[in-house]
């Protein structure tokens, strides 16, 4: 089999994963894009392992490690997504702008500081700037 087949397939999957990460609104869909990218990498590793006939199977072993790391990563990523959902009530990537640097955010931070540290339990705090951009 030409080595190009798996490599090109891997490259295409990687590009598609990139598109998903950059273009999808729901945070879970973004994480799916990340999974696609990681799978593309795995395919690349396996292809080279077959090509190079590695004795210690380093390609396949690294693939296994990547799978484990991906699993850990998605666990944590989804925990964060759930936390964000708990705080903000949604997980739209383009609406989560609390870390922006703008006058509106500055005023909001100042207002929060004067109000004091009041923590609400559970309920969503709509603290993000209006969407757009």
């Amino acid at each position, binding site marked *: 089999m030409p080595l190009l087949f798996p490599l090109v397939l891997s490259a295409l999957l990687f590009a598609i994963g990139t598109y998903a990460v*950059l273009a999808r609104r729901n945070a879970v869909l973004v994480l799916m894009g990340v999974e696609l990218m990681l799978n593309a990498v795995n395919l690349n590793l396996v292809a080279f392992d077959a090509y190079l006939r590695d004795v210690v199977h380093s390609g396949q072993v690294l693939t296994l490690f990547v799978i484990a790391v991906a699993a850990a990563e998605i666990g944590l990523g989804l925990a964060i997504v759930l936390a964000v959902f708990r705080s903000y009530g949604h997980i739209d*990537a383009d609406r*989560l*702008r609390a870390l922006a*640097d703008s006058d509106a955010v500055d005023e909001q931070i100042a207002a929060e500081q004067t109000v004091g540290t009041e923590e609400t339990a559970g309920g969503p705090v709509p603290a993000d700037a209006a969407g757009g*951009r």
Partner: protein
Amino acid sequence: MSPLWAVALPLLGACGVLLVPRRWARELSAAAGVVTWLAGLVVAVPQLGAAQGEAVTYATLATGAVPITLTLAVDGLAALMVLLATSVALAVLVYSVAYLREDPRYPTYAFLVLVFTAAMTTVVLADDFFVLLVGWEVMGACSYFLIGHFWERSDARAGAVKAFVMTRLGDIGLLFGIFVFGVAVGSFRISAANDAADAGDLSTTTATVAMLLVLCGVVGKSAQFPLHTWLPDAMPGPTPISALIHAATMVAAGVYLVARLLPVLDLSSVASSVLAVVAAISMLLAALFALGQDDLKRVFAWSTVSQLAYMFGALAVGGYAAGIFHLMSHGAFKALLFLCAGAVAHAVGSTSMSAMGGLWSRLPVTAATMGIGLLALAGLPPVVGFFSKDAVLGVVVDAALHGGSVTDWLLLISSAGTVLVTAAYALRAWLMVCFGTPSAAVADVEAAAHEPPWLMRGPLVVLAAVTLFGGLVLLSPQVLVDPSDPDTEFLHPEIAVTATLGVLVVIGLVYAGWRRSGRRDPAGLMPTRLREFCAREAGFDEAYDNAFARPTRRMADGVVANDRDVVEPYVRGSAFAARGMGAVLRLAQNGNVQVYLSAAVVGAVLVVVAVAAVAGVVGS
């Protein structure tokens, strides 16, 4: 005794007054005055009439070019001035104990008076120009502080600043004159300058330039035309200060300096003429202004300007002895007059002459001593003022009649006129203060008036006695005489008789005018234009304000506006620009993670492409 004691003792007294508890400050200051006076006696009396005093050099300061020596010398002139200064200072300090009894700022006041006395003795004892300059400037500083003693009053603050600025203006000329002397003579010693002048080592041009520059300082310090406007405005200061500084000593320092440098002045006819013209203008103008004033102290202030011009007139024609004699006698009777004004103000509560009248009955001693002082001012026998005025007139007439130039004649006419006007305003003052029936409101105030305490009356009496019997000094005139010219005549019978007759005529006219005006103000009978001219002091203050003060203030406003409107916007603009740039850059931080990631990926792709291109270029 080393002449330094006459400088050091008042300074020690000054420090002591500040350090002791407040309740002993008055007594200590009076004691310091006594000690200073005694030190002055010891230093001065042996040297009266001496030609050259021995100079004592305390230190030499190397300057790289002409050295400055800290030298004091006591000769006849210095001795007379020391006596004058310390005696008037003693009288003033004793007087102040009672006059400023309630004043909480007494320790500072006494400190400044004693420092001033030390500075005055420094000036008269100095044999080095820079030592003289130091004393000169310290006197100016003390004068500033003392005029502004009642600094709650805005006229006191303004007067202090005006006095300081105008005298300082003149002092610039003085400083450059000192430089000229130093360069021309090769030394800053005053005796060296005089010796060079006597020996003919000083060219006429140098002498002219040097003397004209020195005259700038003298004109400022002694309040002559054109720097004459500060002296009447210095009157808001306490009356003893007016007596000490602005009558007897500081303003007399200018006369002293000219007398000291007389050998140099004689070399330069230009400088002498300039001095004569300045004196002529000042004496008549000031006398006329005195005639139009309502405030008693202002009358005396203008009178001081006029009498100082008299002394300068004498010195300008080379009459050393006449000038010095008048300086001493004026010091005595003008101090007396100012202290009387203080006593009257103490009794009545104001120095406005229209708020007085008929005080003869309530304040007999004060009125009598004031009468003696005014008699001396007008120049009638037998008081010392008559003799000194006669001496000055004699010298001036002599100079004019024996090959006199235009300026000498001008001086003569001016002096003659001044004698008459002086008599007029002297009598006017006495009549308005001591006689006549006051208005009802004033009468109420005066009902409570009483003689001042003896601590104030004492100096008045002593000074009156000196004025009355001071003419006896002419029995042994070598005290006053310039040793190089021992045959000076002091009495000129024809001039004396003519002057006295003129004065009596004027007195008659003024008295008649007083009766005509209902025993109020004889000046009310003057033609209105003339009256206004005198009362407004010919508008000199307004003219100076327009010519100098206003443009300066406008310039200052312009600078402020420039800073605020031109420079400040640049500063603020740079901050604004930085903020603006930050706001623009901030637009990239919109919080959208996907935008950030896109940018990162684009960057990575570009880097890869660039690397590939470079590798491709390098590899091929």
